[in-house]
C-alpha cells in the first residue's frame, strides 16, 4: 500500500493547495494571510515528514543505549527557522493590514483598489 503509505505527502499537497487557493480567491486581506499561513504550514509538514526514520526515536544520545535508531534532526532545526520566518511574515502582514484599515477604512483588496481609483 505505498499509495496510502505516503499519506503525509498527500496531506502536504492538499494543505498547500488549500492555502494557495485561499490566497488567490479571497479579497479579504486577513483571509489571505490565513491562507498564506496554511500554505507555509504545509511545507513545514513536508520537512517534518521526510526526517522521520522508521522506528526512529528522538535524536538524543542516552547513556547505555548503543543501538538506537534516531530520526534525522536537521530538517526539524531547519523548520524551526522557517517557522520563525513564517511568524515574522504573518506579524508584518497583520501590521500592514492594520495600517491599511486606518488609511482606507476597509481590508477588502477590491475595495481598496476602488478607493484609489475614485481618488
Amino acid at each position, binding site marked *: 500500500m505505498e499509495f496510502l503509505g505516503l499519506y503525509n505527502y498527500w496531506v502536504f499537497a492538499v494543505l*498547500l493547495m488549500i492555502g*494557495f487557493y485561499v*490566497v488567490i480567491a479571497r479579497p479579504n*486581506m486577513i483571509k*489571505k494571510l490565513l491562507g*498564506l499561513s496554511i*500554505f*507555509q504550514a504545509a*511545507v513545514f509538514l*513536508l*520537512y517534518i515528514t*521526510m526526517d522521520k526514520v522508521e522506528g526512529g526515536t528522538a535524536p538524543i544520545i542516552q547513556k547505555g543505549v548503543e543501538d538506537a535508531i534516531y530520526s534525522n534532526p536537521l*530538517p526539524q532545526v*531547519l523548520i524551526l*527557522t*522557517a517557522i520563525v*520566518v513564517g511568524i*515574522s*511574515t504573518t506579524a*508584518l*502582514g497583520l501590521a*500592514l*493590514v492594520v*495600517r*491599511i484599515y486606518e*488609511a*482606507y477604512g476597509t481590508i477588502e*483588496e477590491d475595495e*481598496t*483598489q476602488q478607493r*484609489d481609483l475614485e481618488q
Partner: protein
Amino acid sequence: MSLAAQLPALQVVVPLLTAPLLVLLRGPSLAWAAATAASLTSFAIAIALTAAVLGQGALHYEMGGWQAPFGITLDIDALGALMLLLITGASSVALVSGRESLARDIDPGRLHLFYAAWLIAVAGLSGIAVTGDAFNVFVFMEISSLATYVLIAAGPDRRALTATFKYLIMGTIGATFYLIGVGLVYMMTGTLNFADMEVRVADVTDQLPILVAAGFITVGLALKAAVFPLHLWLPNAYTHAPHIVTAFLAACSTKVAIYVLLRFDFFVFQGNLEDHAFQFSMFLAPLALLGILVGSAVAMVEGNLKRLLAFSSVAQIGYILLGASFASEAGLTAAVAHMFNHALAKGGLFLAVAAIAMRVSGVRLTDIGGVGRRMPWTTAGLVIAGASLVGIPGTAGFVSKWLLLQAAFQQGTLGIMAAVVVILSSLAAVVYVWRIVEQAYFGEPAAEGITVGEAPWPLLAGVWMVALANIYFGVSPELPVALAESAAGELLRHLP
C-alpha cells in the same frame, strides 16, 4: 587569522550588527551617519573581496570553523563578487545622496528605524550573495524581503501600503516555493551545501523529485525576480516606495533573485538532469521575450515617471534572462554584464527622479514639464542614465546589449528572432526615454510647485557619480566584463 581572512563573514556581519545599534541611537542625523558608515564599510569590503576574487579565484570561508558539508560555508565567486559590488554600491550611493529626500518622505521620529531596516536589507541581500548553503539562502532571502517590505511601506502615499501587501503575499509564495524545492533536493541528496549537492545529485537514481524541485525553485525565484508574468508586484512597489528606496531596490533586489536562480540551475541541475539545459531555455526564453515586449510597450504609454521606469525594469529583467536562457558562454556573459550595467542605468535614473521630485509637485510626466531649464545639471544626469538604458554607444548599456546581440546571433534562427525583439525593444526604449527628455526640456511647466533651482548638492553629486560611472563603464568596460566572463565560465563548467 588576519582580518582579511574574515572579510566574507564581515560583509554580512557589519550591516547586521549596525542595524540594532541604530535603534538605540534614535537621532535621525546620527542614525543616518552610522548607516552610511556601515554601508560604506560594506562597500569597501566588497571591493576588497572582488579584488581577491579577480586575483586568486573563488574564496571559501568556513563559518565557525565547521567543515564543508556539515557547517555553513561562504563561497564567493566572480558572480557573487559582482552582486556584492552592486548591493553595497547601490546602498552607499543611495544613502550618501538620499538623506534630504528620505527626510522629506519619512516621519523624523521613525527615521532611525527606517535606516535600521535598510541595513538589514543590505545584510540579507549580501548574505544571499556570499553563502554557499541552500537553506541559508532562504533565510537571508526572507531577512532581506521582510526589511524590504518595511522600506516600501514607508512610502508617503497610502497606496504604498497596498503595494507592500501585494509584494508580501507574492514574495512569501515565491520564497515558500523555493523552500519546497530545497526540501525535495535535500530529501534526495541529504545535503544543503551547494558544492556538495552538485556532486551528490549525480548519484540520485530517481530524477523525478529533482526535476520537480527544479520547477519549484525556478518558479519561486522567478516570482522574487519579477520575471514576466510574475512581475505584478513590481510596478506598484517601485512607484509608491520612497524615491531613494526605489533607486536602491531597482539597482539590486531583483538581480539577487536572478543570481540565486543562475547559481542553483547551473551548479546543481544543469550538469545532472537529462535535457535540463533545453527545458531551462524553453521555459525562460519565451517568458524573457514576452517580458521584453510587454514591459517596453507599457513603458511607452505610461504617464507616471516611476511606473514607466518600473515597467522598463520588467523588460530589462527579460534581457538578463534572455542571455541566461541561451546557456552559452557568450549569453551568460551578456546576462551578467547586463545585471551590472542595468543597475547603473536604472539606479541613476531613479536617483535623478528622486532629485527632480525634491523640486516639483509629483512624478507624473506632466509634473516635470520644463525641469530641464530650471535644473539643467540634474536633468543632464538623467539624460546620460537614460542614454545608457537605451544603449547608446559610449554608455554602459551599449556594452551589454552588444554582447547580448552577439550571443543571440550564435543561436541560429531562434537567436535572430531574439535579436529582432531586442532591437525592437531598444527602439521602444528610445521612445520612452525621449518622452521623459521631451517633457523635461520642451514641456510646459506645471502651474503649481514652481520651486526653482537644482536638487540638494549631495543628491546631485550622487546622480552625477552614477551618470559618470555609466560613461566610464561604457568606454572601458573591462571590470564588469572580466567579472561576467569569469562568472560565465564558472557557471558553465559542467556543460559540454
